[in-house]
């Protein structure tokens, strides 16, 4: 069956520290992968998406980067976290537009 794993669930990091959030997908091949950030009372803001290994598209200029080292692995990173990076981060995958999008359980990041 198709599943998506995202970890960690919660993270508290000091300002200026690095970040690595990982997302892996099982049960499918060549998915489109997405990183979203969700602010309280707001919709999902698309940060990055990837249509294949090594292919990353950035939607919002920011302090974050993404990588896709393997077909079903998507990593969100930062070299130096800012307070404004705090938020709820969601990983998702879908095969094609107008098919179901599957979401991970999310990571609550607090930068202190």
């Amino acid at each position, binding site marked *: 069956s198709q599943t998506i794993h995202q970890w960690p669930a919660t993270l508290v990091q000091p300002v200026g520290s690095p970040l690595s959030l990982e997302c892996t997908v099982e049960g499918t091949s060549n998915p489109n992968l997405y990183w979203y950030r969700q602010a309280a*009372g*707001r919709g*999902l803001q698309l940060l990055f*998406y990837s249509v294949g290994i090594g292919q990353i598209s950035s939607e919002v200029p920011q302090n974050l980067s993404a990588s896709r080292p393997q077909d079903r692995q998507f990593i969100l990173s930062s070299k130096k976290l800012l307070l404004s990076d705090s938020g*709820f981060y969601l990983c998702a995958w879908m095969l094609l*537009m107008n098919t179901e999008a599957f*979401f991970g*359980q999310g990571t609550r990041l607090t930068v202190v």
Partner: protein
Amino acid sequence: SQELEQSPQSLIVQEGKNLTINCTSSKTLYGLYWYKQKYGEGLIFLMMLQKGGEEKSHEKITAKLDEKKQQSSLHITASQPSHAGTYLCGADMGSNYQLIWGAGTKLIIKP
């Protein structure tokens, strides 16, 4: 302004009552998704609509897409505590890869 407007922002409903959440766009929607989210968790897929006038139901939840494909509604009949959460609509507005999302409607069910 947001491309996809969702209303109301929040809703408090007595258990057993019906309710409707709306999702509106000024552009044609090529696909419209409804998801439910419990606080601090991922999104759970409810339904997807693509055709003008399409209507889908699952248990006590019905979603409709209007004929012009610019507005969708989510209707819950005889609400239960298990319906509480945040409902988000997402839409394909012609992009090859990304969905646009509404801000969500927080639903609280009063016992």
